């Protein structure tokens, strides 16, 4: 079922949501678009392809305090669990690739085995309104790995720009509830047809096909191809920190005198301190093992664990890498990228 709303009406509706909810929108900054709190001014989405930083930051922030503690002489230590700081949130303008990335992260932080209370609470408190991509950015490759740039997966509501309106599709029950009420209206069969046409299987390869390539064709752990791959990588963390699906973290203690806090922060498999053991041994001592970890985690371990590839084709790693390490090229070299697809 497709709904529709005039753009002006949508913005008025969104503006009203600011009573009681924080609304984050893609905001143009000097360095690029970032999700920032909306003050209700005019949205400037003219050159918006995607935000510089991925949306994972909202649910799994770059760093957060897990607990605080205090130790006093001759007293037992006192631990205070950091209470939740989440507030009702609306994310507007999330791209479908990033919305999908949150679905992927749910496997890790809101899975059967582990539930991360901080993450889960933020998820529960957030409404995701995504904005489908009518045009792809220069480094986007979602379609090549089976992701539809007009998919509502991971969103509560998907909006697709059409003339002076947004066509809307729900991706969750919460989203559907909203769409069933004014100012949203059910679309006529004409709009329904337009949506279907726009949405006519834009993914050039389905995810399952790509996944089976990744699972079956990935070279051995000790294959010499890894040697070739890693040379130019300088092991900075751009690709992992700007990746919407990378989710490794580190936990460290920050103490001052008798008080301290336990902090969780993003970690990166690119760093030499990643998986460094207390003994000084590191099972991933050089760039070769680290690049291998990054690729294998996304395209092999994650699909083995959760049945889905941990890459959404947003292309941030390609666009921002200082040495132009291109994951598409890497996959091609590894025999995992389908040959007939041009870069």
């Amino acid at each position, binding site marked *: 079922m497709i709904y529709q709303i005039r753009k002006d009406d949508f913005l008025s509706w969104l503006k009203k949501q600011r009573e009681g909810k924080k609304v984050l929108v893609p905001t143009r900054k*000097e*360095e*690029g678009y970032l999700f920032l709190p909306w003050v209700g001014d005019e949205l400037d989405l003219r050159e918006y392809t995607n935000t*510089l*930083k991925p949306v994972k930051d909202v649910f799994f922030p*770059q*760093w957060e305090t897990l607990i605080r503690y205090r130790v006093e002489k001759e007293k037992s230590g006192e631990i205070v669990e950091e209470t939740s700081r989440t507030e009702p949130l609306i994310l507007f303008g999330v791209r479908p690739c990033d919305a999908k990335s949150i679905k992927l992260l749910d496997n890790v932080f809101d899975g059967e085995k582990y539930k991360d209370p901080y993450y889960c609470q933020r998820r529960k408190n957030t409404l995701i309104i995504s904005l489908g991509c009518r045009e792809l950015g*220069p*480094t986007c490759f979602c379609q090549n790995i089976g992701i539809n740039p007009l998919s509502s997966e991971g969103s509560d509501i998907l909006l697709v720009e059409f003339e002076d309106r947004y066509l809307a599709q729900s991706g969750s029950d919460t989203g559907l509830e909203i769409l069933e009420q004014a100012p949203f209206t059910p679309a006529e069969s004409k709009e329904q047809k337009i949506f279907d046409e726009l949405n006519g299987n834009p993914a050039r390869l389905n995810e399952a096909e790509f996944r089976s390539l990744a699972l079956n064709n990935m070279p051995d752990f000790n294959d010499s191809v890894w040697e070739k791959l890693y*040379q*130019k990588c*300088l*092991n*900075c*963390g*751009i690709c*992992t*920190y*700007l990746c919407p699906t990378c989710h490794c973290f*580190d936990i*460290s*203690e*920050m103490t001052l005198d008798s008080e301290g806090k336990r*902090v969780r*922060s993003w970690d*990166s498999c690119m*760093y*030499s*301190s990643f998986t460094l053991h207390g003994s000084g041994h590191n099972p991933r001592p050089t760039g070769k093992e680290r690049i291998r970890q990054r690729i294998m985690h996304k395209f092999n371990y994650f699909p083995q664990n959760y049945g889905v590839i941990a890459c959404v084709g947003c292309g941030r790693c*390609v*666009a*921002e890498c*200082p*040495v*132009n*390490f*291109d994951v*598409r*090229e890497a996959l091609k070299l590894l025999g995992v990228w389908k040959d007939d697809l041009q*870069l």
Partner: protein
Amino acid sequence: MTDTNTLSKIQEKARRLLEDGKVEVVIGFAAGTVPGKSTPSFISAKEDCESLVWDNGCSLNLAKYVLKEKRKAAIIVKGCDSRSLVNLITENQIKRENLYIIGAACPLSASCAGCQVKVPVIYDELIEDGSEIREVSTIAERRYDDVLEFEKLSAEERKAYVYGEVSKCIRCYACRNVCPACYCKECFAEKSLPQWIGKTTDIGDNLIFHLIRALHVAGRCVDCGSCQRACPMGVNLRLLNHKLLMEVGSLYQFEAGLKEDQILPLNTYQYDDPQPFLAKGGGHE
């Protein structure tokens, strides 16, 4: 931009070095997959030399790769890469005789503001492209306009600006990892026993990281600008670098990476070293 003649000379030289067995690998640039970016390339088969490029996308400082390279290598350098090599030689990090340096004038169409060293200062062979080679070592000539402008601001304004810049940082360490002068085996930023700085992007941690990064390359930075180009968040890293270049220039009349026999001011002690930061200027009676 570079004429095709320069490129073919570079390719020919690389091919010859591999053919004659003088080197096992040539470090240069190949075409990238993103517009405006060429990508570092490690060529060990002479047939592959045709893939070398020398264009506007070759902005990265390739000297970084020499630190890790174990094979006998040739490297294709522009002005600032060559200066980084000189710095690494003077700091005993690489051996000059293990390296074949192919120099060529910087191919970037928009050169960095104030750049005085487009042509390599050190090389085994210089690919002549007809451009005038300029004698360098002209510290006094260089004006760091960004620093001079910044210094006109009030203390509050300066603080606000620096806080604004470093608060963008996501601590990806790209500035550190692309920098040929950053080669510590263990970086203070990642030490956990003891932990020198927090792993958060809190303003305090970010500020400490950036100040230490800048101070650590004082007297060693050749102002190639790789750090700033690598930064995905657009942090103005060069302002701090320029400030320290100015300080080292005025205190020691020194700029890094110009001559292989230059004495590093921060590695040596002299009785009459200037110490204006001490009380009463720290003068010797």
